[in-house]
């Protein structure tokens, strides 16, 4: 038995290495695609990097050429670019005259705060609705609400929330003021569609788990319904929902573009939007790389969490 335990932990270590390798691969892929896009756009790369409307002196153009080593062969440029990335240097935004890393860093906090609160709200709403609705009628009502939440466009939901809770009831500020109160409406706006999806999957997971054979065993022990859910089926349902939540965190970054625009909040979403409109390619590249990093970290965490929830995932395969 000792032997098989060692075998199991060996397996887990290997897959952890594999996963870290996969993360590096994803980030590298995103950076490469970004680099290629930059080079494949027809015209002088300097024009591309400076943006269409940029009107700059020849000396700035020369410094761009020097920064990117545009005189070198493309492969050297690519390697130099990767080298800078590894050191955390995302390049310079020539439009905004400052390093990309600084611009992103300055806007990271409001966006991360928004995403974190949105995710928390979504999880609470999803878990609450999935656990509380047991009767057929409350389930039907909730399914309808979920569908409504999922299918409403974010900007519309945001405007409705602003007009009810901002202007109408005056509970929350309408524009960004910096306090936690100003974060509530944007977070709820971002959370609602996500909560709808997670709660559907979570409830399906609970239903599927409650049809498993061990449920009879648990009930035959005299356990209450509450105990059955809390100690048993909840965990089974969580296994799937956790994976889904991981994917959704990635999409929250995209959603924050809309929400930050609607609520006129500072944040990465707006930075990204402006960079795309102005073709400020270094910032776009930086955000692509950041998104890839965030996405792979979240997925790594989700995988590790899923292993904790379901020990069978790391079990050595049984051959017969």
């Amino acid at each position, binding site marked *: 038995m000792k032997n098989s335990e060692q075998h199991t932990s060996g397996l887990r270590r290997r897959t952890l290495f594999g996963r870290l390798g996969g993360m590096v691969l994803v980030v590298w892929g995103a950076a490469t695609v970004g680099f290629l896009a930059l080079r494949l756009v027809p015209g002088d790369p300097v024009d591309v990097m400076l943006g269409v409307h940029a009107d700059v002196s020849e000396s700035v153009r020369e410094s761009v050429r020097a920064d990117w080593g545009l005189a070198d062969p493309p492969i050297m440029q690519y390697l130099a670019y990767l080298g800078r990335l590894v050191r955390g240097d995302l390049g310079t935004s020539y439009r905004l005259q400052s390093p990309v890393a600084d611009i992103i860093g300055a806007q990271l906090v409001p966006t991360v705060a928004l995403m974190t609160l949105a995710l928390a709200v979504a999880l609470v709403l999803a878990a609450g609705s999935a656990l509380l609705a047991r009767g057929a009628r409350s389930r039907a009502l909730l399914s309808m609400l979920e569908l409504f939440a999922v299918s409403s466009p974010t900007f519309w939901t945001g405007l409705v929330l602003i007009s009810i809770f901002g202007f109408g009831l005056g509970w929350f500020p309408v524009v960004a003021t910096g306090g936690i109160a100003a974060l509530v409406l944007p977070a709820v706006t971002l959370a609602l569609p996500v909560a709808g999806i997670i709660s559907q999957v979570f409830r399906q997971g609970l239903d599927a788990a409650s049809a498993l054979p061990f449920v009879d065993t648990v*009930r035959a022990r005299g356990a209450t319904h509450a*105990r059955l859910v809390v100690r048993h089926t909840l965990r089974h349902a969580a296994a799937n929902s956790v994976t889904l939540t991981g994917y959704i965190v990635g999409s929250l970054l995209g959603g924050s573009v809309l929400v930050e625009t609607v609520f006129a909040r500072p944040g990465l979403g707006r930075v990204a939007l402006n960079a795309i409109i102005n073709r400020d390619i270094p910032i776009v590249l930086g955000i692509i790389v950041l998104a890839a990093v965030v996405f792979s970290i979240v997925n790594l965490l989700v995988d590790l969490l899923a292993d904790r929830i379901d020990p069978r995932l790391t079990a050595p395969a049984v051959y017969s």
Partner: protein
Amino acid sequence: MIEVRNLRVDLPGTRGPAVDGISLSIAPGECLAIVGESGAGKSMLARTLLGLTPAGAAITADELSVNGVDVRGLGEAGWRALRGASIALVSQDALVALDPLRRVGREIAEPFEVHEKRMPRLERDQRVQRLLQRVAVPEPLLRAGQFAHELSGGLRQRALIASALAANPAILIADEPTTALDVTVQAQILRLLAELKASGIAVLLISHDLLVVAELADRIAVMQRGRFVEVAPAATLLADPQHPYTRELLAAAPSNRPRAAAAPAAPTGATPLLSARSLMKSYGRGVRAVDDVSFDLFAGGTVGIVGESGSGKTTVAKLLLGIDETDSGTVLLDDKPWSGVSESRRRARRGQIQLIHQDSLGTFDPRYSAQRILAEATGLDSAVTRAGRPARIHELFDQVELPRALLARRAQELSGGQRQRLAIARALARRPRVLVLDEPVSALDVLIQSHVLDLLATLRERMGLAMVFISHDLAVVRGLCDQVLVMKEGRVVEQGATETIFRLPQHAFTRQLLAAARLVEQA
């Protein structure tokens, strides 16, 4: 302990009662066995005694008491007090009957956590250890910290029994407690249940297999369509069955039905249809799944591969089918290389060797009707024109003795036996010369098992099929195969003509398997 008079259970949306006028009583230290096919109402009867009938079930009885409590009209809270503490359940496969995401120790502790007031963690753990010791699980400390899938089938089932015993119930309902187990382990679990019975626990044993219950039961009730057709002391019932259905069940028991054609004499000079030479296969690091397996199979012959789960039987099947590649050694099909050639070269000959699974349900597209399933398979047969397909499908249906009325049904609308026949028909559609059958009847009731085995014997004789028959059930193998391979940990420990091996087993492991089988069979 249990007193039931004239119990009737009606389920919503079904015609006729699921349990119809059942009366029974069980005393402390007594075991009543209920035997019958699936769908006879055995499990519904068990669920009624646990108060776990599906919503909307109508239950009437002149008397229905569990451990002295009249449970007619008992509310959910009343039932909860009984379940686990007075009457406990041990069900079929502990791999799924224990919560797979919780440690075994926590699962075992749950009944007394539910029924008794909070206790310190240390005390709880000690109690779990004692329970594991009571069901003879070695290294209880280690086992309590593991998950169900980390335990062997026998240990898992013991852990499940320990969890049923945790809150000291007076009555144990054992619903097919040994069905998922190898024959050696089956015997051990039955012995454990016998010990519990001797300690004064009343046992209600439910099984489809008369021979399994004979070991343990004081009295046997034979159930058919919701009714007891015969109730008698175990010895009397087995020696002198009164009801025709009981006699049918007894006759169907695998050991009572030889089907083996006389070992087809390997025609001198003839080449074997399928030949395995020194097959080797390892998975991962150093796990030898198959270690030096060789045999020759001639037309009309059947080789049985027996062994416990994990012994490498299924891996041999994969190598024979060319689903998995051998590490070394060769498979010859019709004297031409079958292993080690590219899939594109193998594809043209794939039809010659076909597989039949234990659980065929998963092998059918759930949206396909039986007709369409067979149409897909016959579509691969160049000898059948598009216009000739319906006739060929009818022919296949007739060959496996399925009524044509079932052609429009989907697999999940067929019974287990019908499904297995459909799987055989699908295999026959490719006009195979070799069938590889991996536990083809293990999921079926004895009676159905017997009918499917009869069909296989008929087909073998009529079409000259050669078969590789993988099973953990020695009696079934003895009835059908002319040569046998006994496998243990990937190795063939004994190989030879069936009768020789069953009469004069050489290897200790073979003797152990046979002894266990006989222990279960002894009536």
